[in-house]
């Protein structure tokens, strides 16, 4: 490590710097809300802090060179950065907090961006699924993974993709943040189901056919990584499913209070998501 130039050292700590800035901004805004006497859930703050902690661990600079030699470590990073941290960050509702804290003109701009065509297209659960799980198929079933081992920029780009695609997917399925054009619950449930199935399928394919190919990793290591991906992915997807159904449950219960005995179907869209924020 001593032969590294100082520039390179700075570069390796860049992810940690970004996480710290993100965390500081969120905490400042949340404390600002509470000081103004407006409610901001402690659970959301806790959720954001845990998301950042997961990112800190996943993006530890000294972990990078080790992950190049051991695909199991790479897989742990993948789970933390791409599946667990995004869910925790999404549940913290950062966009809602930003809209509430920033000046009205900026908030209006954010809402316009959220409602714009490109965001609508990219935040549809199906496109989010394609970017997230589809991206994993491309990574592990093509020579792309081998490329990331030799190119440090590709490596950082890959982690950024994990985080953004994971965030996008969790938000499109179960995010509390405003999503003006979110499709009906039934559609999101089907996409969640597909994501669980395709993730499990990919990890079994990797185990059975020893993908990614042309890497220095021994077979046992790849198989152990595939099993980590299968079981770790399971836990993450169950948590996402719990977040999804918990949102439905809250909606359903609020309907009981409102309409007393009227029954609401599980396939009803989350009307409250459009109105509340």
């Amino acid at each position: 490590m001593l032969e590294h130039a100082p520039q390179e050292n700075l570069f390796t700590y860049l992810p940690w710097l970004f996480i710290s800035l993100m965390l500081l901004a969120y905490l400042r805004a949340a404390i600002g809300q509470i000081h103004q006497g407006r409610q901001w859930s402690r659970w959301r703050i806790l959720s954001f802090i845990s998301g950042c902690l997961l990112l800190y661990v996943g993006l530890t600079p000294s972990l990078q060179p080790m992950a190049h030699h051991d695909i199991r470590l790479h897989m742990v990073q993948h789970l933390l950065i791409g599946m667990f941290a995004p869910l925790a960050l999404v549940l913290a509702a950062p966009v809602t907090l930003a809209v509430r804290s920033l000046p009205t003109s900026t908030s209006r701009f954010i809402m316009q961006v959220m409602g714009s065509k490109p965001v609508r297209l990219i935040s549809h659960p199906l496109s989010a699924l394609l970017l997230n799980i589809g991206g994993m198929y491309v990574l592990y079933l093509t020579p792309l993974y081998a490329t990331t081992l030799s190119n440090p920029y590709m490596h950082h780009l890959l982690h950024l993709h994990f985080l953004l695609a994971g965030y996008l997917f969790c938000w499109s399925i179960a995010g509390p943040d405003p999503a003006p054009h979110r499709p009906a619950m039934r559609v999101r449930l089907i996409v969640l189901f597909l994501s669980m199935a395709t993730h499990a399928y990919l990890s079994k394919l990797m185990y059975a056919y020893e993908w990614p190919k042309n890497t220095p990793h021994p077979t046992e290591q790849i198989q152990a990584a595939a099993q980590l991906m299968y079981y770790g992915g399971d836990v993450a997807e169950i948590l996402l499913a719990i977040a999804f159904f918990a949102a439905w449950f809250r909606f359903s219960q609020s309907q009981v209070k409102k309409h007393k005995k009227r029954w609401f179907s599980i396939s009803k869209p989350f009307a409250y998501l459009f109105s509340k924020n």
Partner: protein
Amino acid sequence: MQTNHDQAIIQPRRSFWTTFLIGVGIMAAVDEIVFHQLLSWHHFYDQATPAISLMSDGLLHAAELIALVAGFFMLADLRHRHAFSVKYAQAGFFLGLGCFQVFDGLVDHKVLRLHQIRYGVDLLPYDLVWNLVGFILILIGVGLLSRARKFTAIKATDQNH
């Protein structure tokens, strides 16, 4: 203030399907935890499974996880609404258990040949016991369902008199 209890409408059909989902999810989880993990009679991947069967395996796995999570949330929702029918729920639970057991025993093991119950042994007694247990669970479920139906019928005639 009136409580929800006074106006509650029991939802037998929904109670039945809620616990049916839970039954399917629990039997699938028992299969995975007991036979795959604890006994390791069958494995993560068994060298004979073709890639296309792995896809159906993935779909099945996703379905059982969602069934479990959805089932428990729907159960909580029904209880909160005081709309839960215990008798129909019992029937649904046993039918869920049994249907998954028989489906796993016939479709997964025999049609798709995803994996066998155990390797290096004579399979016939294992398959017989596996599916027989499934059929017994289904019979219990059917019995409970007809009992639940009779019970509601009696209640309905009582109210009419």
